[in-house]
Structure formats: C-alpha cells, structure tokens
C-alpha cells in the first residue's frame, strides 16, 4: 500500500496532566516509543479516536523535546470530550505536522519578543516560548502576558511559576478576569493589562487567544504605537484534511492548514474578515 497523507500512524498516550478544570495536556509518542515527527513551533497535528472523529490541535511542546509531542487540549466538543475521558496507555492516531509555524529562525531571531495569550491560547505559544528558552541567546528580552478567567484556569501554572518566572531576561505578567482568594496578582482583562504595561514598541508580538481578546488587544497595541506588521497570531478553523484539499479552512484565497495557521496581522488586512 502506498502511504497516503490522509492515513494516520498510531500513537500512544504516555502522560496525561490535568491543567485546569477543562484543560488537560496529553503526551503522545509513536507505538515504537519514539517521537512521532519533528515540527516547528506553531505547527499542528491531527489526532483521532477512530469511531469518534479526527481533529486538529496545536503542538504544545517545543521541538527541542527529543522524545515526545504534547498537546494541551480544552474539553469542548466530541473528540476533546473523549480525549479527556481516556487513560494513560490509550492508543490514538496521529498525523502531521501541518502548517507554517512561527518564523522562529528568521523574522523572530534577535528580536525582543512579547507573547500575549488568553486561556487555552497559550497552547501554541507554549511551544515557541520553550523553544526560545532553549535557544535563549538567539532572542532578546522575553515578555509573557497571560490571562485567564481565574487562577485555576491558567494552563500549566506550575511551569510558569517554577521555571518561566525564575529565568533572567523573561518577564511574566499574569492576570485573571475577577478577584479570587489566594491571588495577589493583577486582576483585569488582557487588552487593558497590555495597555497598562505600556510595552516598548520595538518588540515583536506573538498573540493567541479568543477572537475578542485578539481584537481588543490589537487595538491596544496600536494605541501604544505598534504596527500590525509586528504582530503574529495563529488561527483555528474547521479542517478535515489539513492538506489544503478538503476545502473548508480558507480565509479568502489562503488556507489556514497550509498557508497558516500563523499569519502576520498586516497580511490579514488583505483577507476577508471571515474567521
């Protein structure tokens, strides 16, 4: 049989970590125990449970992890609900990686980076953040703004507190939507927080979160003097093939699966507002 890109390989879930009430992180290896493929930060892969369905997820782990790929997944539909109910040792199917990824070795190299994430939007940026930490001397200062509904909804909180916050040259700015007992950090929405922090406009921004957050944060960044050409984001639309053929993830003449999912926001000006 000639292998077709639509035919997945088998993988096995070797670790499941509960991050928040509705987000778990799943570690996947091939059934040979090895990393299923090499990827670029920001790329995605198709996971499926035969009989339940197949869906696209961004790869959360950095390519520098030699042995596995991680996926932080929010429980919100059929496939994700099934994934949340499974145990370690479960086999799944996996195919990928898909998409362009962030330009970590070209346009982002040498830059001061500002990561802005809301909720599960940290998932694709997590891969980039840890890639930049691994190759720390290739990048300038790193700022991370991360917000969620509550402290309990911050994905991978222990890693943020124990690793990211303790590293020189990385500033982490956390915020939650409403005051909460045991939280002495910032309270408020991400867009306002970004404005209050009044970042230097020489930074390159990588942003991912709910559309409403992207919209207002971008407006805030522009008020600060940022240009759209300094801002990268990553999209998610319905996909069946992830190969540019099934015909549904397009925004205008661009396919999110192969031309994206990472776009620079000035490029989006030339595309219809249909995402």
């Amino acid at each position, binding site marked *: 049989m000639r292998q077709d*890109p639509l035919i997945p390989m088998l993988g096995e879930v070797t670790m499941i970590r509960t991050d928040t009430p509705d987000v778990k992180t799943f570690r996947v290896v091939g059934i040979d125990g090895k990393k299923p493929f090499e990827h670029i930060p920001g790329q995605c892969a198709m996971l499926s449970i035969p009989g339940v369905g197949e869906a696209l997820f961004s790869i959360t782990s950095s390519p520098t992890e030699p042995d596995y790929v991680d996926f932080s997944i929010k429980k919100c539909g059929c496939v994700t609900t099934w994934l949340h109910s499974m145990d370690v040792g479960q086999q799944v199917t996996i195919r990928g990686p898909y998409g362009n990824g962030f330009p970590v070795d070209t346009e982002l190299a040498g830059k001061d980076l500002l990561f802005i994430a809301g909720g599960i939007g940290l998932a694709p940026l997590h891969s980039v953040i840890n890639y930049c930490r691994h190759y720390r001397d290739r990048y300038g200062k790193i700022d991370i703004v991360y917000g969620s509904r509550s402290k309990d909804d911050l994905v991978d909180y222990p890693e943020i507190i124990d690793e990211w916050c303790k590293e020189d040259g990385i500033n982490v700015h956390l915020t939650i939507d409403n005051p909460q007992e045991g939280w002495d950090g910032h309270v408020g929405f991400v867009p306002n927080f970004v404005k209050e922090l009044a970042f230097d406009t020489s930074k390159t921004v990588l942003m991912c979160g709910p559309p409403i957050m992207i919209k207002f944060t971008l407006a805030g960044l522009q008020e600060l003097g940022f240009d759209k050409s300094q801002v990268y984001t990553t999209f998610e639309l319905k996909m069946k093939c992830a190969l540019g053929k099934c015909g549904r993830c397009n925004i205008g003449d661009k396919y999110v699966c192969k031309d994206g999912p990472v776009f620079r926001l000035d490029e989006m000006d030339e595309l219809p507002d249909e995402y």
Partner: protein
Amino acid sequence: MKKIARSELNALFAAIAEQKQLFIPADNTAGQAEFILWKDGVALTEKLNTTRSAKDLFFPQVENLVNFKVSDKKMEIIENRDPAAPFVVFGVRACDCRSFDILDSVFLSEPVDTFYKARRENGIIVTLGCTKPAETCFCGAFGIDAANPAGDVTCWLDGETLYWKSNTDKGKALTAALSVLTDCDENAVVAIQENTRKILEKLPLNNLDLSGFESDKLMELFNNPAWTELSESCLGCGTCTFVCPTCQCYDVQDFDNGREVRRFRCWDSCMYSDFTMMAHGTNRPTQKERFRQRFMHKLVYYPSNNNGVFGCVGCGRCLQKCPIHMNIVKVAKKLKEVAK
C-alpha cells in the same frame, strides 16, 4: 485519425470492454444520462451530457480510506483501499474534460492524494466533441473549444460515423488494440467542427465576460453588497456542488460497525451549515457567507492561486439544476453590475 461506422458502435464498445472496464453516457432507469458500465445492450444516450459529471469516476462520492480495529486501549490500522481497476470513460464532453485540470491541481499537488492519483493513472478519457451545445453552455468563456475537446482520445460523431483521434500515449496504446477502427483523413471532422462552432456563436452565453474577477479585486468583490440579495433565496440544498465537475470539497467520517471502524471520505458542500461548524461555532453563520464562499472560490480564490484559471468550466449543470434558478452566470453578472 481513425473511424468506425455509427452502426458499429456496439462492436467498438465490445472491443474496448474486452481490454478494460468501459463507462459510457447512457440513460438510467430514471431516464437521466449517467456514466454506466457498458455491457451488451447499453446504448449511448442522445442527451448532450450526463446529469452528474465524469468526476464521479475519479473522485467517487464515497470511498474507503482505511479501517481501524479497536480493542480496549489498543488499535490496529487495516488497509481498506477500494481496488482501482483500469478503465476507459467514453463520451466525456470538453467541459468535463477540462475539469480534470482543475481537480488535478488540487489533488495532485503536494502532498499528492494517492486515491485520486491511482484513478487518474488507471483511467483513459475518451472525449466526444459536442454537436448540439445547449443554451446553458458557456465553456467558451473559459477558452474551451466544445468542437475540439482534449483527453487521451478525442471523438466526433455525426449521423453516419464516429471519428477517433488519439492524443496521448495512453490513448495511442488503447487505439492500437482496437482493430475495429479503420484509418481516415484528418479533415473528415472539419465539417462537424464548423457546424458546432456556428451553433456556439449563437448561444446566449457565448459572450459571457468574466473580466473583473482578478485577485486584486478580492476584497472589493467579497464586500460587494449584491451577496445579500443573491443569496437570499438559496435553499442550501447543495445540488450545485454535487453536479459540479470542479467541486472537490470533501468530508472524512468514521463508521463503527461494532467490529471495525471504517474511515471513509465523501463529498461535502460549502453550501451546508455544518461545513465549517466547530465546537466553538462557525465562521460562516448564515447562507450568505456559504453562498459567497462557493462563488468567490470559483471566480476569485481558485484563480488567485492558479494563475488566473477559473474554477468553473461552463458545463451549465448548475444552470439546469438549481431549484431556485440561481447560478454562477447570474452571480458573475450581478457582481459586475453592482461593482460598476
């Protein structure tokens, strides 16, 4: 060039069918023309074209991708590819033949769709020049000559004779195996072609102007106010996409029969409300967005990615079949009118 008497068509079909499976456009029990596996007694239709296009033979409405055996936490991948037998499809019209260029650009670009590729490699396309093009035909708008179709072999048929000209290596190999054909002069079809071109000139859509859909007008066309009115009556039935020779959107679904899970691919339609539906919602919430997607794809998005080639071949099926009489010609004309 070769020929055979029209009265001997059955002998030609029998000779082809000895070599490979042969599909010809014939009337089904409902009286509609479709590509039917030839056996003795199946006769060529009198109709201009088949209700559904020839794409069915290369990109079937449903096809198996793979099976899975799932037990507890373990699973197994089981090959379940439909067998691809060599075949000949006879009587493909010029428009449908051009549609394969469009399907090829999607399925044969990297990463190659091996299911489609296997059928393309196994299939020989024998086209048939049109002699009675209809009022709904507008292949000429896309530079297609209905009097001189492409394909592995091109045929022309008049009252007396079928003329046969092989164009490709595949076509030549097939021709070499058909001793029922006899040699004839290339000029034999000139009269048939001239007659066809005379009819084409008089067709109402012959001068359809498709300028103004260049990719630099993408945003302007997307935001054209005409979409609201154009899409208002659309039922979202998807008929246009199913009869369309260039529509190639597909869905992938699993069927669990209790023993194995069969993963198959089937045609899908951008006209359907769940086409882009995800757990958190859809980016095309009303029929206006879905309707716009279909026509923007054919007229602007596809050409933008394919050197200006339109994603339509002017076969006219959507003009004939749409229950509310909406179609790509009306859309193109209205958009241009409003843009002015």
